């Protein structure tokens, strides 16, 4: 049995230079337990491997039941010079939400 991050939480992506940050906020306590223990740096790096060079850093905000992933070298050199259509990487939150975790 696996479960998509999309079922456990919601996410938003932000940009600064060539770095993307993607937050994941758990819907409830049970979801937080799964996200906290299963949504690892390794799993996130694997999901973004064809887009970003990394590294990936994970920050925990237990009070908000949220994780914040900082993904470096993710935005085609930076918003202003990127050749990508989504230069800000606004859509990158849905790569996170598509990750499958062991349920």
């Amino acid at each position: 049995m696996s479960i998509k991050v999309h079922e456990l939480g919601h996410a938003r992506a932000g940009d600064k230079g060539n770095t993307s940050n993607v937050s994941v906020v758990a819907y409830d306590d049970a979801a937080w337990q799964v996200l906290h223990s299963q949504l690892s740096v390794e799993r996130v790096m694997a999901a973004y491997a064809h887009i970003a060079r990394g590294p990936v850093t994970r920050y925990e905000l237990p009070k908000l039941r949220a994780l914040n992933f900082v993904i470096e070298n993710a935005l085609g050199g930076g918003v202003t010079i990127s050749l990508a259509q989504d230069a800000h990487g606004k859509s990158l939150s849905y790569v996170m939400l598509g990750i499958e975790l062991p349920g």
Partner: protein
Amino acid sequence: MKRDEIRVGCGAGFSDDRIDPAQEIAEQGALDYLVFECLAERTIARENLARLKDPDKGYTPYLVERFQAVLPACSRNGVRIVTNMGAANPVAAAQAVRREARALGLDEIAVAVVLGDDVTEQIRANPQLALMESGDPVESLLPRMASANAYLGADVVRDALATHAPVVMTGRVSDPSLFLGCMLHGLDWSYEDYPRLAAGTIAGHLMECAAQLTGGCFADPGKKDVANMARIGFPFADIGRDGGLVLGKVEGSGGRLDVMTCKEQVLYEMHDPTSYVTPDCILDVTGVDFEQVAPDRVRVVGARARPRTPTYKVVIGYHDGWIGEGEVGYAGPNALARARLSEQIVRERLQLRGFSYPEMRVDYIGMSSLHGMACGRQEPYEVRLRIAARSPDRKAAQAVGFEMRTLHVNGPAGGGGGTNALREVLGVKSVLLPRALVRTQVLVEGTR
């Protein structure tokens, strides 16, 4: 007279934001201050080029429309306006606002202008400063530099408000500082009172993207629904002298403001949540908590701040060549194969013409343009080929779109909807500049 509580609202979260929510909040928001944040990282570089061509230009393009929409209500309701719409030319922007007030038949208004964010001279004089991105000295960028602006803090916004001018016009000021400046002035906070700076900075950070706090950038149908998104209301904050903070939006406006929208926005563009650096303080959001106190009303507690750094962050805009691009669409049987054939043809054509590129990107829109080409993607019914390339040479960049365009007649069967474009690239890089090298100044345009 200083008050125990003030209300600060947001009228725009980016340069191309909707205009009518600002009018709504100016008319019905019972505001004391209305803040418009309209400057992206590279905007000033672009506007600096506009100013070089025409000395009366160089401020944000929608300035007139935004002021037309809110000036009558702000003037009637005594709402003071604070904005960075001045971009590369805040003095010309202030004059434009005064012209607009006259055209609307309002009383003469004074505009306080914040100057000093333009640090081009200081950067030229300090070529040894290290770029934050690479550590290299800034010297190598100087020949291509188009602009250099320091992110000023809330103290200059406070000083500008102290002139009693109803409008404050700035160039580059850090986004949360535009809001915090209203609180320093309106609540008589000390610039050394870090618990209060924390409350004001988090209020500004949450509101600076306008609708992103009130249901924008949030809806996911069936999972996270948002009501009446065509009429999303922009946020405001009630801030007490003690730093108490409750967020809200105009009653009856669209969107939603709740703990979920706040949690998404508090981490927006944040890296280490213990250390969000602004010109005013270093904000720590790890202790923050949100509480729904009424429908569309959220109390924010627990923000902390450490003392500000001894430097200002400076964004340097520089010329970085050209980007040329083009698109063409295919649908129905064998659509992807026809799009792939087009890619090969364009690559060969550009090579035949003797062009090469330091970077080229190929997107199959419908498959790979946003999340890359991961394994196992299904072939879509329709696919749109996009090719973009960068070059220091304008002609080479232009050739990309040209060759895409010729596919209509010279390419595979059934290619339609071709487009092409060419744009000048302004890159941005950052350095840290010691505060002592920055001289800020407040100038009042017009008399009170």
